[in-house]
């Protein structure tokens, strides 16, 4: 009995993970600028692989692998945001402006190191 539940759980988890990865893929293509695309991509990083790794954790039946899968999730949870942050900062610092941005005074005034250069690439 428990095996059936496990299989279903693993199947769902893996499918969900893949779906989120697909959403990230679509987001990468459809979203208008780098920063919006980063949202999609960081989501794939966290949710997509997270769910697949969870699937592997439950589906492997081998405690060693389960532990390692959980460790993998922790590692992904730490590295993905840091990588996203580094990339975003680098892009912003080199004058790449988010598309149609409202709000932030800093961005508006261009107090960042270099002048505002509007980059606009349609969806």
């Amino acid at each position, binding site marked *: 009995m428990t095996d059936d539940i496990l299989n279903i759980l693993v199947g769902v988890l893996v499918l969900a993970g893949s779906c989120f990865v697909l959403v990230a*893929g679509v987001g990468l293509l459809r979203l208008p600028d780098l920063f919006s695309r980063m949202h999609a991509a960081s989501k*794939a990083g966290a949710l997509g692989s997270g769910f697949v790794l969870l699937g592997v954790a439950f589906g492997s039946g081998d405690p060693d692998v389960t532990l390692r899968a959980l460790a993998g999730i922790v590692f992904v949870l730490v590295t993905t945001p*840091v990588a996203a942050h580094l990339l975003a900062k680098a*892009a912003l610092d080199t*004058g790449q402006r988010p598309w149609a941005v409202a709000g932030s005074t800093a961005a508006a005034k261009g107090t960042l190191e270099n002048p505002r250069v509007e980059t606009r690439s349609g969806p």
Partner: protein
Amino acid sequence: MTESFLQVCLHLSLVLLGVSLVFTALRVVLGPTLADRVLALDTLSVLAIGFVGVYALASGLFVLFDIALGLAAASFLSTAAFARFIRSRRVRAPQPAEAGGKP
């Protein structure tokens, strides 16, 4: 019965991953900015983790699994390196001319 459900999910996942692999590959080439390409390459590594995970489940060979962890580590380093590359290029080279260019 439920085994077949799992197999279906796994195959479906492989297809989904395959499709997103193509999408991501497109972004790697389309760009337009280098940051976009780096983001796509980083997503490629995530895709690879997905691939490894699903393939391990499908083939029952969990021995492959550690590749996923190695990948996560290496992809982090590559994105960090690219970030550094992008930032330092600004100091030397003006906004890359090919920002809006198409291949």
